[in-house]
């Protein structure tokens, strides 16, 4: 490690970051319902993501991190504020933002290659060219040999690879990942985490990643954003360097443990507070 501390606090919406950022979340808040029953899911959030950043958003359950991702994806509209990508406002789903879901988002009536070719087809590529593109990305996620299988014939980890290949096949500017590995077992998850690091390094994609696992966030991210319990807002943000460490076993190092300790203690306070709020409610 070259830096003294493996995690350094960072202000993610500073003026200089905003000046260069591609994806900007600007005073975005979300309230569900109206009147006295309304629930604030997100208090105003500011985020500036540079091209090539790998931003992990960590927070307790129900903190609105998925809501934030859904807003960036264009599935939900913010109550206030705006999200822009390359200075264009986001008003709905779009191919420049590829989304990988936790599970259950694959098309079971299509083979693996048809799933991955769906995006290129939607963009108007002829069937043959779309399949060629699909096979390239299937190879990238290591599923050559399974192109003609149906998703339900594959393991959970392989299904997530299909989901990643499908999102990548449209060559999106940003990848949005909503706890993509949460439903997988530990070994599969660790293996896929390593691979997603590899894919990120090779493709230089900008990634916004939702997780409740601090370890996952520290291992993958260039920037870790810690959110508070509901209503969600940003509690702290860190810059980390572990994602650039070539050692896949970096998670067992002392520096990693220390970094985790810092983030865990922050998140612990939040979880406790969230529980107390629930008990009082």
């Amino acid at each position, binding site marked *: 490690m070259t830096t003294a501390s493996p995690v350094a606090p960072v202000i993610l919406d500073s003026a200089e970051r905003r000046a260069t950022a591609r994806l900007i979340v600007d005073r975005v808040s979300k309230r569900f319902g109206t009147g006295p029953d309304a629930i604030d899911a997100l208090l105003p959030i500011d985020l500036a993501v540079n091209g090539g950043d790998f931003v992990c958003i960590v927070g307790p359950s129900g903190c609105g991190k998925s809501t934030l991702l859904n807003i960036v994806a264009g599935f939900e509209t913010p109550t206030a504020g705006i999200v822009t990508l390359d200075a264009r406002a986001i008003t709905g789903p*779009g191919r420049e933002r590829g989304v990988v879901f936790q599970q259950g*988002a694959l098309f079971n009536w299509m083979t693996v290659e048809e799933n991955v070719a769906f995006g290129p087809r*939607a963009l108007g590529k002829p069937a043959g060219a779309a399949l060629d593109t699909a096979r390239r990305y299937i190879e990238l996620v290591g599923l050559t040999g399974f192109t003609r299988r149906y998703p339900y014939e594959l393991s959970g980890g392989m299904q997530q690879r299909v989901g990643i290949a499908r999102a990548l096949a449209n060559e999106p500017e940003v990848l949005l990942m909503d706890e993509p590995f949460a439903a997988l077992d530990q070994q599969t998850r660790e293996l896929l985490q390593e691979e997603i690091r590899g894919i990120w390094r090779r493709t230089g994609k900008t990634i916004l990643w939702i997780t409740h696992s601090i370890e996952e966030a520290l291992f993958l991210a260039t920037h870790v954003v810690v959110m508070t319990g509901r209503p969600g807002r940003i509690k702290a943000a860190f810059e980390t360097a572990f994602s650039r460490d070539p050692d896949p076993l970096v998670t067992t190092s002392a520096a990693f443990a220390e970094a985790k300790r810092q983030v865990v203690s922050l998140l612990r306070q939040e979880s406790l507070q969230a529980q107390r709020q629930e008990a009082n409610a």
Partner: protein
Amino acid sequence: MSVARRTARRNQLLGFASFAVMLLAWIAVTGSGLWTPLVNPTFLPSPVTVANTFMRLADKGYQGHTLLHHFLISLMRFGIAFAICVAVGVPVGLLMGMSSGARAVLDPPIEITRPIPKLALLPLFIIWFGIGELSKTIVIITALFPLISISAMQAVRAVSVRKIHAAQSLGASPAMIFRRVLLPASLPGIFTGMRVSVGIGVTMLVGAEMVATSDGVAWMALTAADFVQTDIVLVGVLIMAVLGYTLDRIFRMLETRVVHWSGRD
């Protein structure tokens, strides 16, 4: 052999055994020429008598029509009604599932008429549509249409929003989302609705052929009952049972072939 396959094989044998026991009980109480019948043959003829009657009917026909004619005319009545219900009911159901406006318009008439026993409407249909094929077809349609359209509606509404979101963020147009996501994702539910309505449709034949007819398998059974020809009644009943069972098997087979992804999410 795997445990699952062994269980499947065992259950198949149990199914045969269950059928064999029913047949043996029938043979036992009716004597079947082996011993004195335990019940009056007029009320319950033996399987042998029923088989002989079937051969006789197949050979000589019943009341001026061949047995094949009775069978085919019943199949046609059911088939036409079923085809119309699928051709109209599935699109209507899909529309209701996708548009809350369409649901607001179409749901009340379907839901209000659903609990009405459709056979009770038959006299009315005969007044409106005459004693020909039309009133018979319509009474079967009224029974099947709600089943098929509502199952299509529920199927499309049950499509996971994630799949739709995924398609949207891959740049798919609404037409492409319908054709390649909503429709295939709803097919398993649509198939279930069709399979259920096959059974009910065959049952409805009895009602449709109750009045103002002179052919059909159900009509044959009903007419024979008036003359206490229980052997002919049983031939008619068994033909309908076999028809219903066969159609159900065909649909199950189609289901595993056509919608292989059913229930595998």
